């Protein structure tokens, strides 16, 4: 048993830390509350730092470090990825790469044609192209396999009709990565296919809408007789569901969430030590002390759940159950933490970043709102529990 990392991982950690010290503004608070949910990650909140910072990451190849060298990556170990994700999240650094790096690229490596690889992988490595994930529909949320967006063959083309929703960043993306129904006459999981094509394709319109964090991230995306060439299909027709569900060989520990929580907790602790309310420092309030201690331990437990996953991945063990544990636990923890932070501030915790009186520039207020999405996005807590019970524990359906 060894809870420590190898020396080369620790060296790499120093390298990432030095980079972050150098490249992030000295007073960097950032508004990264992505530990708390899925709705507040946005250039709008991170300001101009994001673009220049991202270019520097690209230069180091860090966003795609996990990719095979053959595709421009660095074949980084799971522990290296872990360290990178942990340090980035711990500093609240602007996020990088998104689904292009973590999901689309790897899927293309596995299921894409040579042409797909040529067309997309280099651009992703260079940070030049972005993707929106067109999965959820108004009628297909938790029950994702019931998507009804249709792709019908027409000669060498497909004609696509339907609607996606909660599509992150579609209004900014270059391409859409779309799950659509190609066969309506088979059980629902067996008639889906994956497509990739430009958002600019005629007939595609996206309508971004605000989430309750006041961030414009999600979209309704409409497909009105969208004609795409045959090579927009990725992998085999009707195998899209299985392709979408294939586990990819990445760090899947969820460590970023827990590192973000740790950072948020440290911000809170500093605030409590510096701030008087009702004649004493918040840090002296016994009820707040108990909750802070409890939540700090919760965060450490989460970090270990993540570390455990890396330990398993390093041994090439299946981590799907452990990942569900980390997601379920982490998302509920982040809600508690966001609430704790906002509660501790009393009425001041209700002030948004637009108020000069908002503590920590409204960090916890925003996290509180964002945390609504924590247990909804990427599989609701109910779905995670179903999965753990049925797949993990073998309970009958």
């Amino acid at each position, binding site marked *: 048993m060894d809870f420590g990392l190898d020396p080369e991982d620790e060296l790499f950690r120093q390298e990432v830390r030095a980079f972050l010290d150098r490249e992030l503004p000295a007073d960097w608070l950032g508004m990264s509350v992505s530990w708390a949910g899925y*709705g507040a990650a946005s250039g709008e909140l991170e300001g101009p730092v994001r673009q220049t910072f991202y270019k520097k990451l690209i230069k180091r190849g860090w966003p795609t470090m996990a990719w095979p060298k053959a595709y421009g990556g660095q074949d980084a170990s799971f522990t290296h990825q872990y360290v990178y994700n942990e340090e980035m999240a711990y500093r609240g650094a602007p996020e990088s790469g998104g689904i292009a790096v973590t999901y689309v690229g790897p899927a293309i490596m596995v299921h894409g044609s040579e042409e797909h690889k040529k067309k997309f992988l280099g651009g992703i490595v260079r940070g030049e192209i972005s993707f929106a994930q067109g999965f*959820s529909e108004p*009628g*297909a*949320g*938790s*029950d994702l396999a*019931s998507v009804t967006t249709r792709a019908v063959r027409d000669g060498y083309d497909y004609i696509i009709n339907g609607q996606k*929703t*909660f599509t992150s960043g579609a209004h900014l993306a270059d391409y859409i990565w779309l799950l659509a129904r190609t066969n309506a006459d088979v059980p629902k999981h067996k008639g889906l296919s994956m497509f990739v094509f430009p958002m600019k394709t005629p007939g595609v319109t996206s309508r971004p*809408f*605000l*989430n*309750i964090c*006041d961030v414009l991230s*999600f979209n309704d995306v409409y497909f009105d007789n969208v004609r795409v060439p045959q090579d927009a299909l990725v992998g085999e027709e009707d195998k899209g569901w299985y392709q979408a569900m294939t586990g990819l060989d990445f760090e899947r520990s969820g460590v970023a969430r827990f590192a973000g929580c740790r950072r948020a907790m440290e911000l809170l602790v500093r605030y409590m030590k510096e701030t*008087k*309310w*009702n*004649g004493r420092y918040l840090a002296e309030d016994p*009820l707040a002390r108990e909750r802070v201690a409890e939540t700090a331990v919760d965060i450490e437990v989460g970090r270990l759940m993540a570390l455990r996953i890396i330990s398993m991945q390093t041994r090439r063990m299946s981590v799907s159950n452990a990942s569900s544990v980390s997601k379920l636990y982490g998302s509920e923890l982040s809600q508690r933490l966001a609430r704790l932070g*906002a*509660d501790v501030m*009393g*009425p001041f*915790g*209700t*002030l*948004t970043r*637009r*108020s*000069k*009186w*908002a503590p920590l520039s409204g960090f916890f*207020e925003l996290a*509180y*709102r964002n945390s*609504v*999405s924590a*247990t*909804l*996005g990427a599989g*609701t*807590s*109910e779905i995670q*529990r179903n999965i753990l019970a049925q797949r993990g524990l073998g309970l009958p359906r």
Partner: protein
Amino acid sequence: MDLGLNETQEILKKTARDFLESECPKSLVRAMEEDVKGYSPELWRKMAELGWLGLLLPAEYGGAGGDWVDAAVLLEEMGRALLPGPFIPTAVVAALAILEAGTPVQKDKHLSGIANGDTIISPAILEPEGAFSARFIQARAAEDAAGYVIDGVKLFVPDANVADYLLAAVRTSDGVGSDDGVTVLIVDARSEGIEVTPLVTVAADNQCEVALKGVRVSRADVLGQVDQGWRLVRQMQMHGAAATSASMVGGAERVFEMAVSYAKERVQFGRPIGSFQAIQHKCADMLVDVDGARFITYQAVWKLSEGLDGEADAAMAKSWVGDAYRRVLAHSNQIHGGLAFSKEFDLGLYFRRARAAEFAYGDGVVHRDAIARQILG
């Protein structure tokens, strides 16, 4: 013994619901979030005409002579409709403070105006350093020949940007006992030296910072007794807490109803999600929470109606309802899935309003502290 509403109250409830459904649609609620005034003067006038603004005032001031239970019925519906505007500060907190502590002149001057919709009055109590204890009233009113000169900062003043008057809790002396030295002054909100800045809370509910610099008030504008105003402040807090609880009950009930009907309609995996036990059990828990919230609030307003001491009951209500509403929202969010997170969907409006309401007139920690003092010394 009867925990239900009487016939008049049932009619008031129905009237209020119908009126607010047509006059206060969610489009208005959303518009008011961006509005510089934060409420609709037109709707305010209609509410005056319906007698709502003077509900708790006697007929001599143009009021309807209703009691606290009537008010709670109305407040539930307002909470359900998310009615924006200064109803609680003006028509409940300020109206009752002036009615109970005001001189005949003050009553004549202000109460009819409240009842007929001409006058908006808001309590200005909280300050940057602390709250809910007389010692944190640090805005000072220095006495001179002409009256008082106020300097200080008040925070979380509801609707100060549209208020005609503020009921400002200020320090007039250091006092002997810990609760002495606080005086409530009726301050003309357009006085020189007052600067109002919106605070921008999560609820976009028009709470303000009020900076007072050399603001002059005459002796005639002292509400109640000089240096003995803390009792009145506590009463305002209590009334605000009871009223806010009632409004939260209405909001919580609506959030619960939305979840139940969505659970019946929304189909996933080939069946209504309301047939899944995880959803069913959340709905059952919401039912329990809404029931509990309603009756702990009713008991508080009933006591106030009867002229009994309702301070402990209001504290119980505000703390319990705040927690219950939070639980109800968490379940309803979970049942609604992504919709809960979309700003265009109404649920988020309730979520954001509930967060502000939780802290208005004291959150659970504050009220439980008071309860603990009563129980444990």
